[in-house]
């Protein structure tokens, strides 16, 4: 079963008739909408200070007569208009505002005087309040000049949801606030959106992926009145929910896989990104989520996960440019953290107070550096390192699977160690009843060479060579003091006289041992002993230890790139009894293609106890395997606190080397202090941010959630709730949501569910003409949201629609298609060069896993307004450019997706052209195409099929784009023609828009 654009809705009685009524009403009351403005200016209406007067004062007066003390000094004025005291207190001859007495209020006089020198704001600012604005101030004064603190700086109080006339419409309290406003304005709400559209809307909003036709059908077939809610619950439980939410958080967190700045070297932070996805999927409460990211390391008994969470505070750029001054860039790092905290949690532009007191909000420069002091105590250098692990502090951060594997390696090491102990206990004890050491040094009597290399015996029995020949054979003889011979050990020892201070004469001190043979020489003759195994602590790829016992001179054991270190080769032989007076002869040959790769410094030892040798070897191997695995574990940069905090100062004009007063950590004085008992460190700051008494945190968080769903926040300036920010469209609703969030114990899934369960959210997104003109941003919420998908979702959707998407969650970042040369044409610095796209599954991962190089981020993302991640950004712009069209039409990602979708249409879309086109359309847009739409698609298909039939080579070229091969069984011309239709569908406005 499937549905078209307007059929089948969950709620009854919301069909076309309703829609027509809606449109007609909207047109009819267009004039009434304008009342919104009129209510502010009508002569008898009460003037709301925060709504009407403060914005005017902020815009025209605060820059010089506001919080910035320095600026007030500069303009030689004591007048301060951003505080109640400043507005109403007499200043010499004048009083800025006298309640009820506009004519004698200096503010009004200065705004209205015809004396150019006296009139404010000064002409040179180019700013001039309108007559309406001045009238508002006059009326406010005449009405008694009631003053209030800026709305966002007062903790939200829970409002009572208003009573509405159309009592049947609201599904929850959100709708009461929205409907009350609509009824007041005389605007009608929209009907519910068609079901298929709504299913797609929910899916894109909650998991960032489109629903498949089968999923749409399943929901539509669910007769339960709770079908919608079931869908919401199912989506919230999907592991893709965490990915979708992480995408939204990563901009603010300025997450990237490179350091930024000049060299922009790669860094490893993906474990933080995976922590983030997990935290959302486990529905970590927002307060906990906040505390762990800002101060997880300071929690008692912090878990590894809680430490990884603090990667948030290390996602900033790190400068590694040669010649930079460490303190300058350390300061930049700390300032970045303050700015980021301000934007992400508080919706404040704290950064404005870096150089001077904030011009509009009550944040002094000293306040800024008191916040700075919280973040100043990380044991980090100001100059970064160009290494994958990044710049200290960082930690090993195994994934759960890796932690399990590490445990297995540890167990293997423990087992090998126990076995060795056991072997040692069985070994014959020496006179002192101590376990004998496994190895007995050989003290050579003679050491000769075949081709002229000098080989001298050292006092400790080691051999040192000089004047190496191209090829060589060493023959070394020594008496045996043991009763049995079971093993021989060759140690390759670094020596200062050798190249690279290694053990051999080859490149960087390398050597290449072709063969090692051991013979027992007794009075009765010479017996060559057969090696049963050869193992080494390290061997170069293609040059294993086994090469030294394979009987071939051409192959050898070699150790690049670890030539500078000590190495050893252990040879096990079948145990033989050693008669008295016997000698051992060891022959070492160096005759591989690596000429002159002779060992320069070596030592030999023998063993008599084969199990002991084997046990020792096995332990060494187990340890090496464990260490090797541990080396390969991912790392993540994290926060740590120095035992003794760094001193922090006010930095004059924000310059690192211009110290003002020393400051201690603290919160801005205009806000509540740290909660009782909270420590004066990052943990205390995090507790302050998440304290329900904080007026901003909950409002900022719910406003952003709202913005993601509706395209515009209840406060449009979701990045600034301060004095210069915009007023909320629905202040009571915002406060209700904020208090509800806290009441729900900061449960993010529950909050999101409340929003999407509302009738407000479920409205049809069609925009009546009158509203399109009068309320283009849909601030009244008289219809559902309709806006372009974000960059990642556009690509993810194309992959999903084509059935190409790899659904794996987390892991190191991946490299999808990118035009050749994007990185290399701008830089030869750092290590991110020579981009090669991944093959197989990693080519089709969700876009949040794409490797992010800050100075040259993926172009297909940036073209769709994804920020560079060089700094925190909490609100993306949404533009529409020709370059976006070119991307969707021509980028191989989308060309391939269209062709693979075409393959699915042919395979799974039934046998008729119509059914196939319908199937493809539904995969992308969820709803059924109309007859008119289907007609256009079919005609296009027919025209282009004819072209491809006539030009089969064009078809072959088109279907060959991308790594995923076309199904050879499908007709090339037909597949190509469907591919052009699929591309047409993927390029539709509706396909890249959430309706």
């Amino acid at each position, binding site marked *: 079963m499937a549905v*078209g654009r*307007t*059929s089948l809705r969950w709620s009854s009685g919301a069909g076309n008739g309703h*829609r*027509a009524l809606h*449109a007609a009403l909207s047109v009819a009351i267009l004039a009434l909408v304008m009342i919104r403005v009129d209510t502010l200016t009508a002569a008898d209406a009460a003037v709301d200070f925060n709504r009407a007067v403060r914005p005017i004062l902020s815009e025209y007066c605060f820059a010089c007569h506001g919080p910035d003390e320095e600026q007030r000094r500069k303009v030689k004025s004591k007048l301060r208009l951003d505080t109640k005291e400043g507005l109403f207190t007499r200043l010499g001859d004048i009083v800025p505002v006298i309640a009820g007495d506009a004519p004698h209020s200096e503010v009004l006089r200065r705004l209205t005087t015809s004396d150019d020198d006296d009139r404010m704001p000064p002409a040179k600012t*180019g700013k001039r309040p309108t007559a309406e604005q001045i009238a508002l101030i006059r009326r406010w004064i005449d009405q008694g000049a009631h003053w209030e603190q800026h709305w966002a700086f007062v903790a939200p109080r829970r409002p009572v949801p208003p009573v509405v006339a159309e009592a049947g419409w609201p599904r929850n309290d959100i709708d009461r606030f929205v409907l009350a406003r609509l009824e007041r304005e005389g605007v009608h709400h929209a009907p519910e959106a068609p079901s298929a559209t709504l299913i797609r809307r929910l899916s894109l909003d909650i998991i960032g992926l489109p629903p498949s036709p089968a999923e749409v059908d399943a929901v539509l077939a669910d007769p339960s009145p709770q079908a919608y809610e079931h869908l919401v619950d199912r989506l919230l439980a999907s592991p893709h929910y965490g990915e979708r939410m992480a995408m939204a958080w990563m901009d603010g967190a300025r997450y990237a896989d490179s350091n930024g700045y*000049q060299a922009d070297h790669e860094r490893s932070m993906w474990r933080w990104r995976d922590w983030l996805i997990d935290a959302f999927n486990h529905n970590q409460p927002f307060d906990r989520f906040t505390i762990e990211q800002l101060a997880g390391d300071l929690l008692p008994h912090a878990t590894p996960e809680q430490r990884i969470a603090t990667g948030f505070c290390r996602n900033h750029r790190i*400068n590694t*440019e040669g*010649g*930079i*001054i460490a303190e300058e860039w350390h300061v930049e790092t700390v300032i970045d953290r303050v700015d980021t905290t301000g934007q992400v949690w508080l919706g404040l*532009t704290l950064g404005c107070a870096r150089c001077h007191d904030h011009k509009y909000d009550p944040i002094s420069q000293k306040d800024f550096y008191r916040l700075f002091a919280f973040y100043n105590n990380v044991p980090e250098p100001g100059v970064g390192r160009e290494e994958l692990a990044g710049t200290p502090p960082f930690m090993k951060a195994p994934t759960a699977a890796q932690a399990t594997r590490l445990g297995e390696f540890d167990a293997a090491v423990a087992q090998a160690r126990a076995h060795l102990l056991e072997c040692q206990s069985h070994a014959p004890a020496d006179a002192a009843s101590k376990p004998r050491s496994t190895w007995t040094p050989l003290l050579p009597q003679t050491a000769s060479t075949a081709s002229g290399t000098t080989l001298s015996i050292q006092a400790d029995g080691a051999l040192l060579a000089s004047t190496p020949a191209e090829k060589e054979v060493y023959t070394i003889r020594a008496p045996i003091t043991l009763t049995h011979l079971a093993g021989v050990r060759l140690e390759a020892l670094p020596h200062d006289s050798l190249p690279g201070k290694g053990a051999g004469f080859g490149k960087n001190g390398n050597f290449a041992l072709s063969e090692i043979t051991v013979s027992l020489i007794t009075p009765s003759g010479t017996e060559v002993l057969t090696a049963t195994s050869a193992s080494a602590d390290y061997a170069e790829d293609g040059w294993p230890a086994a090469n030294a016992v394979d009987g071939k001179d051409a192959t050898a054991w070699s150790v690049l790139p670890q030539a500078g270190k000590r190495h050893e080769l252990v040879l096990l032989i079948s145990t033989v009894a050693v008669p008295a007076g016997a000698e051992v002869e060891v022959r070492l040959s160096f005759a591989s293609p690596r000429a002159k790769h002779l060992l320069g410094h070596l030592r030999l030892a023998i063993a008599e106890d084969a199990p002991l040798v084997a046990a020792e070897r096995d332990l060494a191997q187990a340890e090496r395997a464990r260490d090797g695995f541990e080396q390969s574990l991912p790392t993540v940069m994290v926060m740590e606190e120095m035992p003794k905090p760094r001193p922090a100062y006010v930095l004059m004009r924000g310059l690192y080397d211009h110290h003002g007063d020393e400051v201690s950590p603290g919160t801005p004085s205009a806000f509540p202090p740290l909660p009782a008992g909270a420590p004066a460190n990052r943990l205390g700051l995090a507790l302050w941010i998440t304290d329900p008494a904080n007026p901003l945190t909950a409002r900022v968080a719910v406003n952003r959630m709202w913005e993601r769903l509706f395209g515009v926040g209840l406060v449009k*300036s979701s990045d*600034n709730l301060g004095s210069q*920010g915009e007023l909320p469209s629905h202040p009571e609703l915002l406060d209700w949501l904020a208090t509800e969030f806290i009441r729900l114990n900061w449960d993010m899934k529950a909050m999101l569910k409340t929003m999407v369960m509302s009738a407000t959210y479920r409205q049809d997104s069609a925009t*009546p*003409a009158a509203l*399109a003109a009068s309320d283009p941003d849909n601030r009244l919420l008289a219809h559902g949201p309709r*806006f372009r998908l974000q960059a990642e979702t556009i690509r993810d959707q194309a992959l999903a629609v084509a059935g190409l998407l790899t659904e794996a969650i987390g892991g190191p970042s991946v490299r999808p298609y990118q*035009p050749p*040369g994007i990185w290399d044409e*701008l830089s030869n610095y750092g290590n991110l060069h020579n981009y090669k796209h991944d093959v197989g599954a990693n080519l089709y991962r969700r876009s949040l896993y794409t490797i992010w190089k800050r*100075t040259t981020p993926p172009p*297909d993302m*940036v*073209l769709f307004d994804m920020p*560079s991640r*060089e*700094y925190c*950004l909490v609100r993306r712009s949404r*533009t*529409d*450019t*020709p*370059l976006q*069209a*070119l991307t969707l*039409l*021509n*980028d*191989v990602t989308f060309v391939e997706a269209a062709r693979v979708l075409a393959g699915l249409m042919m395979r799974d879309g039934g046998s008729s052209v119509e059914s196939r086109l319908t199937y493809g359309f539904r995969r992308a847009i969820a709803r059924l195409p*109309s007859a*008119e*739409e289907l007609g*256009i*698609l079919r005609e296009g298909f027919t*025209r282009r099929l004819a072209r491809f039939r006539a030009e089969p080579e*064009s*078809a072959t*070229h*088109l*279907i*060959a*784009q991308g790594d995923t091969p076309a199904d050879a069984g499908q007709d090339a011309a037909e597949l190509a023609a469907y591919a052009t239709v699929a591309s*047409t569908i993927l390029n*539709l*406005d*509706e396909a890249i828009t959430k309706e």
Partner: protein
Amino acid sequence: MHRSQPLSGSGQLSRRRLIGGAMAGLGAAALTGLGLVPAAGGEPGAAHAGNGGLPGLPHFPPKVKRVIYLHQSGAPSQFETFDYKPELVKQRGKDLPESVRNGQRLTGMTSGQKSFPMAPSIFSFSQHGGNGAWISELLPHMATVVDDIAIVRTMYTEAINHDPAITFCQTGSQIAGRPSLGSWVAYALGSENRDLPAFVVLTSNGSGRKDDQPLYDRLWASGFLPSRFQGVKFRNAGDPVLYLNDPPGIDRSMRRDMLDDIGRLDRLAQRDSGDPEIATRIAQYELAFRMQAAVPDLANLSSEPAEVIDSYGPDARRPGTYAANCLLGRRLLERGVRFVQLYHRGWDHHANLPHDIKGQCLDTDQPSAALIRDLKRRGMFDDTLIIWGGEFGRTVYSQGELTATNYGRDHHPRCFSIWLAGGGIKAGTVFGATDDFSYNIITPDAKAHIHDLNATILHLLGIEHTRLTYRFQGRDFRLTDVHGEVVTGILV
């Protein structure tokens, strides 16, 4: 079965939406595309009288309509180019006096040096032009146009490392995230060509130092301005503009056919949803189609007389070189592109300066001079602004050992030399003077900070730099922050 209120025609398209949704300069294009049968191709390359700039701009009659900024990335030494220091020969090898350095902070590359031996240029200078300006022997072609340019010897900046310095130079702030100069101009004035972006970026690598300083997308990013104002980087290999070419198997007529279908279907959606954004999207697809023709036309030099190409030097026929980019830049300007930003890498000469700077000058000298002549020949010189310069200067003392034939120079922010030419510029000027060490500016009334230069560039375009603002997060931002004075001394 469709929505019962068909909303057709362009009457529903609010002005705000149109401006908000269209690319710089495409307001007219968006209207043209609306509801009309799309034109097949249009006239590629023809400059149209579109604008799309802000109302009220320019603030006053502009001296120039367009800008080409020849940025020399890595920071050329003033000593070997435009700032002649004959007295320095006597000081050769002596330590830089502390009285001259006077507290200037040093980069970590030389702050550990035991001595700061002064290094005069090993290249000779001679006087040229009506004003007898001293020009290095490395710049023989620039020497012939010295009467057409204004040399500023007293540029200064704040940053001492490349990344912050070039970011400062191009965006007016060392901190990443501010709009670039070109983006501000595109935002303010829009484009004069409906088929090409208003702001185009071209890059080339120097032959002097091949592994030199990187560039960053942020240098031409739009910051908090809508991203449609970001510079469009033309590439030297592959598609000249990302994703410009149709995929193999789809030719122009088939692309047209597909676009017609997309347009038809989008118009149905617009009828049903009433969303004016759809009209903008349709228009952008049409513009993309025209760009696909206009851009290849740009790069096609077949209409260019051989002597013109040759005047830019032997590199002009090799795409991706500085010379080829100067010529391409002129072709962009000619088509009404508002702001062309070139970057030539390879000037960061901490060591082996004599060898490396020779290569850089060879790359840039002839093409820069040819660009001036070419613009003059076409009558475009008088309404075009050309700027040549790097992000800071270099030190008088040698980084590393000073020998008879070799030395290097570290970064120096207190003075460096640039030149400007074109409309409104007082040709033949040498502006400002530095001390005998080219370490400090000695003409307090004739100097130019980065903000001053940027204010001057805007001024020549008819923009009062203090009045070009954009509100972001509640604050009105400017390219010049709260600084900047127009450098009137170099203006006619």
